């Protein structure tokens, strides 16, 4: 290949050859997902050890069917979906097919879906779009919760600097916000209530439908960030009774960089990404057709596997949670006793810095997470656990473990088995520090 690409004439030959190879690949039978994931996630030796992935709330591995669909679209459907000609029409057809697949997953009509670059853009679009549309009507107030994703919290802080008022409702100690508290926060000039469907750190489901009914009856638009629930639990926009819903492809085995905002027909909001007339003038920019096709396939897979995946992951999560609680002393579950997404548990380890635990586990081949990571990849006390009223120590000792479609019982058992030795070691160091005067000396 290197030699070929050195001369211009041969480069053409390479391209032709490449097209031929890909053409053939389409006819080959695809390996099953189990075969691929089995090899990749459990047996693959990466940096000298087998690895197990317990961070599906951060992102999920891309399903092989999605990969195949994205690759095929990149290869075959290069057209601009806005073009009038044959190539444009083909791309547009793929786009609309994906829209239908996604609509079917969440009980929406396809025309209500706007594709975005992901969950963060969809959250921005919902909040800024509503704010901009309703500000001329005298609305200047937003209601949300203290446990939202940064995409919601930071966007609202930006509006605050422009004179909007924001009320952030705290959850109870188990990580659920009460519908009554949200209702009490509504003001005559409230434009939008934004309430996440499932919390990313503890997994608790929020009373979206109950809040939405009240808020909408009082003329307040309702947005839900459903990034952590779509693909994990049944999500139906009519049942949730909201006006706007955010979802993201890479949280349910789709590609990164693609998501959507569902907008109930007739909802007042202005486009925040301005330019061409794509997405019915609601989101400008040439459509990411391969990514959107991948999102559609991921949605289709999620719809067909939802029940099966949910049941299997509930079992694995519960085994993991109970196993850790039994194997390691002085542990507790954050968000326990509440309805949660089936794949998530958040466990506190008294006397341990979660940062050290995460690194120690990674070195032994287990990928887990704590709260949200900041720009440099370091850890900060979780704003979610803080809002739940946990002590500073308890906000810094919690691990988030999130299983997924390809997690195996063996991986769960290995993680449970690895924890006692690691936690003992880390606790011994903490005790040692407390016992050594020099280790805690303060400068003069």
């Amino acid at each position, binding site marked *: 290949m290197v030699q070929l690409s050195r001369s211009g004439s041969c480069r053409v030959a390479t391209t032709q050859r490449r097209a031929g190879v890909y053409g053939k690949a389409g006819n080959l039978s695809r390996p099953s997902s189990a075969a691929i994931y089995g090899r990749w996630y459990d047996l693959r030796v990466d940096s000298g050890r087998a690895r197990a992935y317990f961070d599906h709330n951060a992102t999920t591995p891309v399903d092989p069917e999605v990969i195949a669909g994205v690759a095929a679209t990149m290869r075959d459907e290069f057209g601009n979906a806005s073009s009038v000609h044959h190539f444009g029409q083909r791309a547009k057809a793929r786009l609309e097919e994906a829209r239908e697949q996604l609509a079917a997953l969440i009980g929406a009509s396809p025309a209500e879906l706007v594709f975005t670059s992901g969950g963060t853009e969809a959250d921005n679009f919902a909040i800024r779009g509503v704010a901009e549309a309703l500000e001329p009507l005298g609305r200047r107030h937003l209601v949300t919760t203290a446990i939202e994703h940064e995409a919601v919290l930071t966007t609202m802080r930006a509006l605050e600097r422009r004179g909007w008022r924001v009320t952030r409702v705290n959850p109870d100690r188990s990580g659920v916000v009460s519908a009554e508290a949200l209702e009490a926060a509504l003001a005559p000039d409230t434009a939008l209530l934004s309430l996440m469907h499932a919390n990313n750190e503890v997994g608790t489901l929020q009373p979206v439908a109950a809040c939405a009914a009240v808020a909408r009856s009082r003329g307040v638009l309702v947005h839900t960030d459903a990034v952590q629930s779509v693909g994990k639990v049944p999500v139906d926009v009519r049942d949730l009774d909201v006006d706007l819903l955010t979802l993201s492809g890479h949280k349910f085995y789709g590609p990164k960089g693609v998501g959507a905002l569902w907008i109930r027909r007739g909802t007042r909001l202005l486009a925040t990404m301005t330019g061409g007339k794509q997405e019915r003038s609601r989101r400008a920019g040439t459509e990411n057709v391969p990514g959107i096709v991948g999102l559609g396939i991921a949605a289709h897979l999620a719809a067909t596997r939802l029940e099966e995946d949910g049941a299997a992951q509930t079992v694995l999560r519960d085994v993991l949670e109970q196993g850790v609680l039994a194997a390691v002393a002085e542990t507790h579950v954050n968000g326990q006793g509440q309805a949660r997404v089936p794949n998530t548990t958040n466990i506190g380890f008294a006397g341990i810095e979660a940062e050290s635990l995460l*690194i120690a586990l990674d070195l032994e081949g287990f990928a887990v997470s704590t709260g949200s990571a*900041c*720009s440099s990849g*370091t850890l900060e006390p979780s704003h979610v656990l803080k809002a739940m009223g946990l002590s500073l120590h308890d906000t810094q000792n919690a691990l988030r473990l999130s299983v997924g479609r390809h997690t195996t019982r063996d991986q769960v058992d290995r993680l449970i088995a690895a924890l006692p030795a690691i936690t003992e*070691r880390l606790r011994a*160091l903490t005790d040692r520090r407390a016992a050594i005067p020099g280790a805690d*000396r*303060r*400068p*003069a």
Partner: protein
Amino acid sequence: MSGGVDSSVAAALLAEQGHDVIGLSMQLYDQRDGQPRFGTCCTIDDLHDARRVATRLGVPHYIINFESHFHARVVTPFVDEYVAGRTPIPCTRCNSDVKFVTLLERSAGLQADRLATGHYVQSRQDAHGAWHLHRGADPGKDQSYFLFALTQDQLSRALFPVGHLDKASVRAYALDRQLPVALKPDSQEICFVPDGDQAAFVARAAGARTPGPGRIVDREGRVLGTHGGVHRFTVGQRKGLQLSVGVPLYVVAIDATAEQVTVGPRSALEQRAARIDGVQWIAGRTPEGPIQAEVQIRHRHAPGAATVLAVDATQVEVQFAEPQYAITPGQAAVFYHGDEVLGGGWIASPAAPVRR
């Protein structure tokens, strides 16, 4: 791994020798304000550089949040020292109270046998099992002055893979191995004061405790002028006094309580003695009776022959054979025997100036 060439080469050398290397970087201060900071240690860019090096070496790399430790153990004492009219060395605190305490503990939690850094110092264990600390082989880069406070326990778990090299060899090695930081300039400033304006930093951090304006006096107490706060001055400083006396005048003493800066001629800065507190001995024992040593009173300063007499476990009196220039409270005094570090402490006060 700071993202600089020294710690990068330290990691590369160990990885090449077949050690099981884990890269650790410390995030030391708030990076979220998004302000670009150039040419200093441990910015977001530097942390990314550290990660790129780790990726090239094929070793795992983690960035650990040390903001609260760093603030409590380095930044706050730094501010307090300036408010008290002294001139602190935050790098020593960072080494002995953050890197070789908290980072060492974290690395032990990862079952690491040793903590390696890119410092230009050398450590050796003698036949009796005791550890010794020596200057780095490159006299221009030696950092032993900043590491006098290491204990036997800390030394026994430390590795200094570049200590026996000179800077040129370190850069050559980095270039040869194509480390992405091979040509990165050395950091110069105090890392958390990237613009070098320490007075402004102290004023921001100290708030209401910021020293107020006061008088500039000569050694006889005559008022020569006024100043904007004692934190703006260090002993030996000549610039910024805004006096028109005709002869060059230097800061010879700072009295934070009286908010007074004393100035005098250059000769007034030459002193033969100093009182040192917070003393630690590398060997872990206080020598009995006076010892002869070479005492270095600041970074990049030729050490002077001196008699060091321990007053008690943490205080010594140093009597120099020749007058030393600008013995500055807050700086470290480090005791050497040849290139070996015997110990050191913090300069509490110079003795009375030598009158000529």
